[in-house]
């Protein structure tokens, strides 16, 4: 699960939080997707050549503590802001994937004094349509085979071999699945109030979206991006919900053009 970085437990907001750090340079806070596949991905090592990549696991993910009172990504975002303070970070580039993107957006509407740039990749977080519109595919109600096809441009890319994992690694997989549901079950994958708060985001923001994302479609991403003042929106070809994993080169070139 975890990659090559230095992994430690820190106290943030009174909670025990797992933080992995790789490389040296300006700080880049990487908020992983709900599955934390980023922690084993090579593009993070590339980022670590120019940045210090800091990957905190929000409460309930990785080995981070999850107190009972926490109920949604709005709660999680306060702890992630606490992590920035505890580590004494400044001028931070925040990059969030999927659920991590939602948490990043929740952070940016609260306080950007330590944040210099924001990147949201196939993020959840807002509702753009009406009550009967399915903005975000219902991944918990649809058949798993349908969800895999929607998530990946090439479903083969989504295969994970659990048989090679030990119990500690499987425990993290199971905790991540559970915490994802804990925080995002209802309202489904969005905070009804976030939309009204996004005007407060006052740092340069880039939305990167997989062109073939069937979970959160590009049209959703584009509508989301229009809620953030001055935000740019780019699509990545031949990629689903995780463009950084399926079309890494195109993703990195879009990212590097913005953060360097």
């Amino acid at each position, binding site marked *: 699960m975890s990659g090559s970085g230095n992994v430690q437990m820190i106290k943030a907001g009174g909670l025990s939080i797992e933080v992995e750090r790789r490389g040296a340079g300006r700080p880049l806070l990487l908020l992983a997707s709900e599955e934390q596949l980023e922690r084993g991905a090579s593009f993070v090592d590339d980022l670590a050549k120019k940045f210090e990549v800091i990957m905190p696991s929000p409460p309930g993910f990785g080995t981070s503590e999850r107190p009972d009172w926490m109920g949604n990504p709005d709660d999680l975002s306060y702890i992630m802001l606490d992590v920035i303070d505890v580590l004494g970070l400044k001028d931070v580039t925040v990059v969030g994937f999927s659920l991590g993107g939602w948490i990043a957006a929740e952070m940016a509407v609260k306080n950007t004094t330590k944040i210099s740039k924001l990147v949201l990749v196939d993020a959840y977080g807002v509702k753009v349509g009406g009550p009967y519109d399915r903005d975000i595919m219902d991944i*918990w109600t*649809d058949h798993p085979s349908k969800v895999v096809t929607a998530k990946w441009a090439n479903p083969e890319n989504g295969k994970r071999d659990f048989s090679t994992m030990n119990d500690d690694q499987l425990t993290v*997989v*199971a905790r991540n699945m559970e915490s*994802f*549901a804990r925080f995002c*079950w209802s309202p489904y994958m969005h905070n009804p109030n976030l939309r009204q708060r996004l005007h407060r985001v006052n740092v340069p923001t880039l939305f990167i979206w997989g062109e073939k994302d069937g979970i959160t479609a590009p049209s959703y991403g584009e509508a989301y991006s229009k809620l953030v003042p001055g935000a740019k929106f780019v699509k990545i070809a031949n990629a689903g919900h995780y463009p950084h994993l399926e079309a890494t080169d195109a993703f990195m070139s879009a990212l590097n053009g913005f953060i360097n």
Partner: protein
Amino acid sequence: MRAWHFTEMPYPNLPPLESLSTMRVSLPNKLFDPKIGADLYNRYLDEYMIADDLGLDLLCNEHHQTATCIDVCAPLTAAILARQTSKGQICILGNPIANRGDPIRIAEEMAMIDCISRGRLEVGFVRGVPYEIFAANSNPTETVERLWEGIDLVTKAWSPVDEPFNFEGKFTHRRAINLWPRPYQTPHPAIWITGSSDLENIKRAAARGFVFATFLQPHTKVKWMFDGYRSAYQDTGLPGGGGTAYMPLVYTADTEEEAEKGARELTWYLNAKTEPQYRNPPGYVPVDFNVNALKGTFTGRTDAMRAKTMEFLKEEGVMVYGTPDSVAKQLKRLYDLVGGFDHLLMMQQAGWLDHARTVKSMSLFAKEVFPQIKDLPRTKPLNTKAAAE
């Protein structure tokens, strides 16, 4: 020993089951014919009334968005039975308090039914099976907490008060709680709870003096749960009440062949199909169960049962069927194997089992089996210290 008649009120009139991917949650409701539904509701209620005449107690439950159970509101069934029957106890097993989300409304409904029935109501509470999460849209990671907050609030609300009280819990916020009516039985009706593998839940039920009920499990597992209940009961040293309840599929007939045919109809319930995502929503079971699921070693109870033969299920006590003497013998064996129990909950109808054959089986049971097991003694708390040695 008390004996309870139970049907889930199935709607079996479906296209060939092989053509369906699921009978629950997402089976399109255009397949429900209201005229057939009307006949079925009235037929199942008639069977409860016959059970009452036969001296059986009456057990009902509810599920949602499923052809396996079209009773979507157990309080409605219980209210009808409260008015239309006169002898049997009526038990709702149970109120899905975590999914309904309004404990005070449930408390009111139960109090009213208890009054109409003049104190024949017993009130169960359930967390709700995994697929219920979807119809109710409950967060699967918090239904245990909701269940217990709800039960404790209902219990308090039922009790006579000198003045109204406010409640500001995690899930429920209410002001000036003051139940009109309060239950016929003071302080309140007997409370039941269900469970399968969570020992903490079982101990909590025992500590509060609730009846603990479990369904369709191998007898070794039932014994393990009932021992857990009986030990906790001893440990906490609470006064009377409580007890244990077990539900097998039951079919009684004049001949073994007929009994086997009837019992085979009941397996319709065990074979009901559900798509995989509805069977284990994330967070419904603890993390270590899901670690086993990822390893492929945890598939869920019903799946495990489905693969077994009827002979095996009979051996395990999951199915009880045969001539009256054979059924009595099987039940006495089961009673001994699980360390005794207090309530026999009988699923005597499922699937296509028709009215005539259902009534035949119920009648034979009531007249020829029940007298043979009625006086089995109530089970006693276990001495944990002795049990541990």
